[in-house]
């Protein structure tokens, strides 16, 4: 597609429920990154995909967080048994390759609120 698409744009969920966040990167971009941003804060790295593989998942905060990518395209970030501290904006970015010189194209993010 023309840009990085994320869905849903907003999600309100009850504590303890599972949520799935979706990212559809730019066609042809092999690298995909997930970040989260708490209110007024910087971006916290979660996970990096190159194709369907995740060579760096060092930022996932707990085993309640998981992500996958299929067909070298769409990625899903799943948060199980959500907690209030999971409330944040989850941002996805894609890049032409896994080299930083290409820069990122970001989606508009999913604002997750856990009540």
């Amino acid at each position, binding site marked *: 597609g023309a840009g*990085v698409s994320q869905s849903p744009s907003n999600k309100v969920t009850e504590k303890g429920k599972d949520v799935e966040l979706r990212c559809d990167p730019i066609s042809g971009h092999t*690298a995909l*990154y997930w*970040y989260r*941003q708490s*209110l007024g*804060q*910087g*971006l916290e*790295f979660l996970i*990096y995909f*190159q194709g369907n593989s995740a*060579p*760096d998942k060092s930022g996932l905060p707990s085993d309640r967080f998981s992500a996958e990518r299929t067909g070298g395209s769409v990625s899903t970030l799943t948060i199980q048994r959500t907690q209030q501290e999971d409330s944040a*904006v989850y*941002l996805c*970015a894609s*890049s032409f*390759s*896994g*080299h*930083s*010189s*290409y*820069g*990122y*194209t*970001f*989606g*508009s*993010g999913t604002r997750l609120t856990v009540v």
Partner: protein
Amino acid sequence: SQQGEEDPQALSIQEGENATMNCSYKTSINNLQWYRQNSGRGLVHLILIRSNEREKHSGRLRVTLDTSKKSSSLLITASRAADTASYFCATDKGSSNTGKLIFGQGTTLQVKP
């Protein structure tokens, strides 16, 4: 700890004035990038400067990089109300081959009409 840290955290200026934001980082880098974020949503890539470059221009943006001091600055000249946003610097790690960027906390810029 953050690889990139911006200074100041917040900046308020009048339209037409110049805005300068600074970024410091800790490790060696291949490049440093600046992004802009409106309304807490997606970030937009503004400019990239490579580690062997000292200055780069793009329209009203001027970026400098001092690798000896591990610092960069972003200058926005003749600011407009539409420049109101948060600005983030992002660095890779020179030894990394993943393209992973580490973002700073950002500078919130308000340009008053």
